[in-house]
């Protein structure tokens, strides 16, 4: 009797794994196909699969995202497509942490100061509230272009998830009025599409 149970469990686990694998490949496939936000939608169904297969191995979820970095001239933002592993954290957190890792790609520039860390990201009623440590401002180069590109890279990376319409930036938990004295950041910012053309 015990043996049957064990076999049944094993079967279930295999089934769950297969499901997961399917999901993963589908995500990757879609991500490359149209390149845009579909990956985000796929990712949402992934945690559900994890919970149904609790007994089995907790396999980390893979997710394809786009993070944005300015070009060398600070004229445009360039999408950097990455596959991140969701290790229990939310996809928004994963995307922001990936952005903060920086880029080594040719033709792309890091604008967010290296020491900057993510405190939290929350999405509520279509607005993502992203909270950074004070380092964001401390070693920031400034300038209209610097400020536009920094804010643009955060806003456009988060609004890549279709359910995120606006982004409010916080530093150490407090609303930011401006980063270097140009932009009005007191209101949540919508997608900065003109930086992507």
């Amino acid at each position: 009797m015990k043996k049957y149970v064990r076999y049944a469990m094993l079967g279930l686990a295999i089934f769950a794994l297969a499901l997961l694998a399917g999901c993963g490949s589908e995500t990757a496939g879609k991500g490359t196909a149209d390149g845009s936000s579909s990956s985000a939608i796929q990712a949402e169904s992934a945690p559900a699969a994890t919970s149904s297969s609790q007994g089995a191995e907790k396999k980390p979820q893979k997710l394809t995202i786009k993070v944005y970095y300015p070009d060398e001239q600070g004229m445009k933002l360039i999408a950097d497509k990455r596959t991140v592993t969701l290790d229990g954290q939310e996809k928004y957190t994963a995307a922001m942490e990936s952005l903060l890792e920086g880029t080594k790609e040719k033709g792309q520039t890091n604008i967010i100061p290296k020491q900057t860390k993510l405190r939290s990201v929350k999405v509520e009623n279509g607005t993502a509230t992203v909270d950074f440590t004070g380092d964001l401002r401390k070693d920031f180069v400034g300038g209209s272009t610097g400020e536009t590109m920094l804010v643009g890279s955060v806003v456009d990376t988060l609004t890549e998830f279709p359910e995120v319409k606006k982004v409010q930036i916080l530093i150490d938990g407090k609303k930011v009025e401006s980063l270097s004295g140009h932009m009005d950041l007191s209101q949540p910012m919508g997608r900065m599409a003109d930086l992507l053309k």
Partner: protein
Amino acid sequence: MFSKICRGAAMLLMLLACAAAILPQNGEAARREAVHRLNYFQSYETEVDGRQALRIEVGMDRDNVTYDVTTRPYLEKQLIIDLSNTEPGKLKPDYTLLAKYAKHLHIRELEARHTQIRIDCKNPVVDGSYAVHAEPADRKAKKPYRLVIDIFATGGTASSSRVAGVSGHSVVIDPGHGGSDTGAVGPTGVTEASVTLAVSKDLQSILENSGARVTMTRNKDVDVYGPNASDRQELQARVNVGEYTPGAELFVSIHCNAFSNPASHGMETYYYAGSPRGERIATLVNEELEKAGGLFNRGVKTANFYVIKHSSMPATLAELAFITNAHEEQLLSNAQYQMKLAEAIARAIGRYFSGN
């Protein structure tokens, strides 16, 4: 008769009461700082550091006077010296001066113990065209402690350039950053705040010289709101300068750009989306800066920038060049290049008002 005496007595009592109320304060003020009384005046032509000058000496009975010099450089061509805690004393209200330097000198007590000396000069009153300093009493020459005012016949760093189309118009110039905020800093340490101020002052000279009224959000290295203000307070204070200037027609904010990649370079101008007149001035400034400055043109852009968003009048923000780019930092710190850019912006403003 009796009632008259009564009324007189009552008046006297009231006067006494008033005097009693005022006197102690006066006494206190006097103890804090003695009043200076002017008692000496002389003007003569002389040579100062090898330059021909009119020297005016205004003496007084005590030393260490606190004075403040301001100018109305172009339209009125006035040099104004405000003396705190000073009375005109023995001096006449008006003096006629040597016409090749200045027409008149006026002395007025504007408020109690606040005396102003105003000189109507012949030439524009700009840095280098005048000098003011205090000198201690000279017993041999029988001269008391005095202010020495030199007005030079020629010289000064005045821009002689003029532009068409701005006469009678009112423009607000906003030199970006300043005070506790240096703005962006270049590789050799040139600060954005110093460059924006220099270019803005040049621009002010040209516009005033051409008959425009100019209001500056700042005319020295200071915060507009005050040190340690929030970003919003500081930026709103700049907007307010424009909003509270009656008849102001245009808001022009001057900035230098910065980016983490030192290769980034060029000039660009901004307006707030949805403002056709903002777009017009941003376009004209962009065209003129490209012609005069010769830098890579990054374009006319819209942005969510505070000062152009919250100004109710047409507004533009110009990014002259990248201070984080070594070559452009050098250009930005060059006085001749600064003047060239100021002339370009002035021409753009002239075109804006004359519609071509």
